[in-house]
């Protein structure tokens, strides 16, 4: 089945052959994979998807892969959890948590995009992959490049959390720490990508890479029994995930796979210290004003998001909104999710929980409507953010009487 028409400029519509390229030569608009949906209709069905593997590859026909999957065979199909305790706490009827903090193999949704990008890099015959990263992407590129026996060059801001540095280095990539913000790393990588013939997953492979995020949206709909929720709250860094979840819903509608006609309102979550997309939404303007990030949510610290314009448009088109979270609210959000659902997410997840809570309290998200909250990364990668916030544990000698005394002390403190 011939399902791909090459690439197409998202702005001016010019067509390009399938190649490792990402920018329209005429208007600089981003290039996007162009599918032949007519060829997919009736071929991709609920049954054909259900017959696929318990991974994101059950949606392979809707991803830009021509041949076999090269790496990341077990990525995705993460739990969608009915978060009853969190819903009780927030006074809501129906909250779901889409939990990519347990995505295989590197515990973030980035595994989805990287498996597509590296498979594609192999298809195009590259022997070296690279990326600019705020951490999660670095982990995933290093891991999946190792699996694919490819060389990897990973560029990160030098002040990245130690957990994310170790969780990259363990796979033996060439790790380059750049003294600068992520946006500066990204600009440098754009110039490096122009000079060296490498597969930069988020630069020249962006059209393929970003499509991997659609699987997160497909899974939400399938796991809800082929219905769409009334609201989805999505963390935004570069702004790609929210646009691709929205695209996933549109594609499933186009293919006739969704029950009912209910619209989904898409909501963007960002840190107050780096929230240019939410600022666009609040000011209702399609002009992005870049910022210099200052937030504990480093995985979301992109001051000049490439897909900011499209993220804004998705919230507008879907009737959604956006909300900022302060550093304090981010930590509270992480603790709230851990305390109610037993899920330890990274700071980005704290942003999403905090933003969702505020939107619910403001009445923007009605309490009786169904809500999906997107948790995209694992808390064990960023424990430093909680270091000062958690109570010291009880230390005792190995004797029963020592424990009895400690227990009595604890009880007297809480009574």
């Amino acid at each position, binding site marked *: 089945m011939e399902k791909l028409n090459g690439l197409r400029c998202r*702005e001016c519509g010019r067509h390009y052959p399938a190649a490792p390229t*990402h*920018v*329209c*030569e*005429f*208007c*600089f*608009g*981003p290039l996007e994979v162009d599918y032949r949906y007519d060829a997919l209709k009736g071929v991709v069905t609920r049954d054909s998807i259900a017959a696929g593997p318990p991974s994101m590859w059950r949606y392979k026909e809707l991803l830009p892969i021509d041949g076999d999957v090269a790496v990341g065979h077990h990525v995705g199909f993460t739990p969608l959890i009915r978060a009853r305790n969190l819903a009780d706490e927030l006074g809501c009827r129906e909250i779901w948590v889409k939990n990519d903090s347990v995505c295989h193999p590197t515990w973030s949704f*980035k595994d989805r995009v990287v498996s597509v990008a590296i498979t594609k890099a192999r298809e195009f015959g590259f022997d070296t992959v690279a*990326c*600019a*990263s*705020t951490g*999660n*992407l670095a982990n995933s590129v290093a891991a999946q490049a190792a699996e694919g026996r490819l060389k990897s060059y990973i560029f990160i801001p030098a002040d990245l959390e130690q957990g994310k540095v170790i969780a990259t280095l363990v796979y033996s990539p060439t790790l380059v720490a750049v003294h600068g913000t*992520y*946006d*500066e790393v*990204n*600009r440098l*990588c*754009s*110039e490096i990508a*122009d*000079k060296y013939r490498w597969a930069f997953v*988020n*630069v020249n492979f*962006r059209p393929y*890479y*970003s499509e991997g995020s659609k699987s997160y949206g497909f899974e939400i709909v399938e796991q809800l029994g082929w219905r769409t929720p009334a609201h989805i709250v999505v963390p935004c*860094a*570069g702004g*790609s995930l929210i646009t691709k979840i929205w695209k996933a819903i549109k594609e499933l509608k186009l293919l006739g796979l969704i029950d009912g006609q209910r619209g989904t309102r898409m909501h963007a979550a960002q840190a107050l210290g780096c929230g240019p997309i939410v600022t666009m939404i609040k000011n209702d303007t399609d002009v992005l*004003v*870049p910022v*210099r990030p200052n937030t504990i949510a480093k*995985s*979301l610290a*992109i001051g*000049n998001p*490439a*897909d900011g*314009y499209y993220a804004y448009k998705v919230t507008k088109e879907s009737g959604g909104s956006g909300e900022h979270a302060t550093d304090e609210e981010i930590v509270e959000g992480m603790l709230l999710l851990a305390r109610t659902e037993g899920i330890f997410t990274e700071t980005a997840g704290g942003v999403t929980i905090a933003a969702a809570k505020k939107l619910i309290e403001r009445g923007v998200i009605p309490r009786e409507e169904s809500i999906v909250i997107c948790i995209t990364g694992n808390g064990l990668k960023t424990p430093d953010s909680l270091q000062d916030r958690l109570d010291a544990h009880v230390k005792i000698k190995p004797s029963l009487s020592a424990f009895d005394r400690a227990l009595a002390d604890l009880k007297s403190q809480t009574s």
Partner: protein
Amino acid sequence: MPVLVRIPTPLRTLTKGSAEIQAKGDTVDTLIGDLERQFPGLKDRLLDEAGELRRFINIYVNQEDIRFLQAKKTALKDGDEVSIVPAIAGG
């Protein structure tokens, strides 16, 4: 005022393949004028119909995004380096 301008791949068809060129201008705006004089058609790629910088292009003067400076009015001096960079994804 000679300034070094780095040209990204999508624009090199206009600069006969050159990745780096010398151009003159005391501001980014006048620099774009000189680029157009040297390489006709380049201006239309950088600016939209209203004369504003296209949405998906970022211009940096000595590694600094001109939106943090004075945008197109950002002053240039001898030896400055200007990079034209398409927007890029990431995270």
